């Protein structure tokens, strides 16, 4: 669907909020807690598709609200939104999809976020009917931006500007048995949190993660495509999926975040660098499949059956 940028607010030098709505004001499809939309963004030579959490929550049908951080090594998408987008622009926006829905059977929720990883939790806290506790870590200079997105005076929401003051083991050890853990943020932040949970014996069923983007950049590599006969170069800042699309191919894809499994392609030669959350450890070890949206290569070349 085509949505118009109704308003842009500058929350910090690197964080902006966008309000998107239909031209005719028609009600938008429901975006549940944790849902994201895929936004197509025009670039110099091609368009980019980025996933952004809908922070406005399911109760809002007249607009979607997204919060975008300008990525330092922007592939084009967040740079466009920060540098070129103006109110009135029309953007192609996909239907909301959800790879990070809160558990309906949890007795309580522990939400841990780092930086822009807070965005899915902004819709959680508008929706959850069960008790929750949110700990958010960010840089000191970003504190006003995030504080402005959160309800003020809530004792179950804590902002941290020093990672050291947030001890995951202590925090997790104090949780009750019916607590589910959700974490969204930089890779090392999530690894620390989930590592602490596993160390304390938390069952996997109570650990929830979503990772947009994650590792998208890395060393340049070359992909040979057996079926189409093409050779495609994957630059440092682009994903394999993006490179395939830029070459005029139409590979399968859905979430573009390593979560859904749709973009799996068979690997005939070379060793993939797996960054997805879909393939099991045993599948990864076989090195016979790659999720093109987030994974790259350990070898300088890959041969794919595509």
């Amino acid at each position, binding site marked *: 669907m085509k949505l118009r940028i109704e308003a842009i607010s500058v929350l910090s030098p690197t964080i902006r909020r966008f309000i998107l709505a239909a031209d005719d004001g028609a009600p938008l*499809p*429901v*975006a*549940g*807690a*944790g*849902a994201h939309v895929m936004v197509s963004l025009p670039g110099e030579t091609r368009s980019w598709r980025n996933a952004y959490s809908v922070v406005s929550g*399911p109760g809002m049908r007249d607009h979607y609200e997204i919060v975008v951080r300008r990525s330092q090594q922007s592939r084009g998408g967040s740079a466009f939104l920060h540098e070129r987008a103006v109110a009135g622009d029309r953007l192609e926006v996909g*239907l*909301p*999809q*959800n790879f990070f*829905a809160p*558990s*309906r*059977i949890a007795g309580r929720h522990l939400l841990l976020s780092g930086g822009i990883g807070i965005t899915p939790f902004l819709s959680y806290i508008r929706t959850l009917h069960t008790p929750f506790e949110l700990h958010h870590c960010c840089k000191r200079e970003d504190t006003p931006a995030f504080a402005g997105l959160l309800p003020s005076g809530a004792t179950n929401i804590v902002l941290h500007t020093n990672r050291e003051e947030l001890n995951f083991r202590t925090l997790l050890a104090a949780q009750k048995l019916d607590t589910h853990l959700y974490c969204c943020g930089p890779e090392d932040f999530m690894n620390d949190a989930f590592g602490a949970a596993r160390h304390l014996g938390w069952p*996997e*069923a109570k650990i929830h993660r979503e990772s947009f983007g994650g590792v998208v950049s890395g060393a340049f590599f070359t992909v040979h495509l057996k079926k189409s006969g093409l050779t495609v170069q994957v630059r440092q800042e682009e994903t394999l999926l993006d490179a395939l699309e830029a070459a005029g191919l139409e590979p399968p894809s*859905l*979430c573009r975040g390593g979560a*859904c*499994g*749709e973009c799996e392609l068979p690997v005939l030669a070379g060793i993939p660098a797996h960054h997805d959350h879909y393939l099991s450890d045993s599948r990864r070890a076989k090195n016979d499949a790659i999720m093109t949206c987030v994974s790259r290569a350990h070898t300088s070349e890959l041969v794919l059956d595509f």
Partner: protein
Amino acid sequence: MNLNLKPDETFRGDFSTRNSDTAILRFPFPFHDDKYMYAVNLEPHVRGGPTAAYDAIFDLDEHYIGECRDRALTLAEDPLRCQVLPHMIEAEWDTLELLMESLAFDYPEHFTLTKSGTDRHWVNRPLGLDRNFTFGDASSLPLPPFEYITRQVQGDFTLHDQRENTLFMDGGMVTSQADWSLNFDLGMTFHEWHGPVPVAHELGVFDRALAYLMRLPYGKPVRRLNWTLTVHPRLDTSPETYPIWGPDKATITPANVGAHMCLRVELQTLTRLPRSNAILFGIRGYLIRLDELVRVKKWAMRLHRVLRDLHPGIAEYKGTSRYRQTIVDYLGAFDDGSIISPGTGSEQASLREVTTA
């Protein structure tokens, strides 16, 4: 769409229900080919298909009033046919919204939904219902939202929570089922409730179907067909009432097979619900007597071949052993053995008259 609603039909006792010529021609015949085997036969559920049964997102037909009445009778006898676990309350509202919006869109002459903020005004003219309520406030409806709306739609529904890398059957309205029990399956995982199905596990059908459904997108529902055979056009063939309908299986003879035996087809739809992230599984059943079905030449020939050559394990699982040969003999009289094209459409604009031997 003019539904030509029949005001007074029964699906038990005297089984007064009949399919009109229109209803026969719109029947969702399930067999593309002369052979049947389990497959992940999911396809996008968009309006339009081989017959008019695919023209709406939730199909209603001339049996609407009678089927809703039969559901009410079954629920009065056994309230456990409708159960939803407490954590599925958002999915209940998702279901109510989806069904009301779909019916009002596809059948505006029969249903009207007016919205203002969270205020709703729902009018169901065929059942004579007119209700103002507040979306999200269960106390504003006479029944829980899922039960309220599914009492007003043909077909069974189940609700599936997605967690722990599988789907759980955490709710349902099941009064017209092919011998399975919601009360027994409630809370089971995808592989648990499919446990009894033969052959398909070995084919990997359930692993692949589950992997697909786990990433079923919002706004892109899918459908598939399933089928079985039922004696009489009886909606409620549940394990709980087996003593009532089970003995019917022993009554089929060459003389009554055409009038008593029915092909039961389920047009199953799977829809991602937005607030709950749950999946709504719709099981819209259609019953057609064999002497109605044989009025479509292609369907008579194809059903004959499918049943004649059916995998023995599937034939046993579908409970057909007692009467399969009787049906095959009956249908064989309509099959000249000629090659028929793939596909499920009737390929007839009107029905032929047939006289049975």
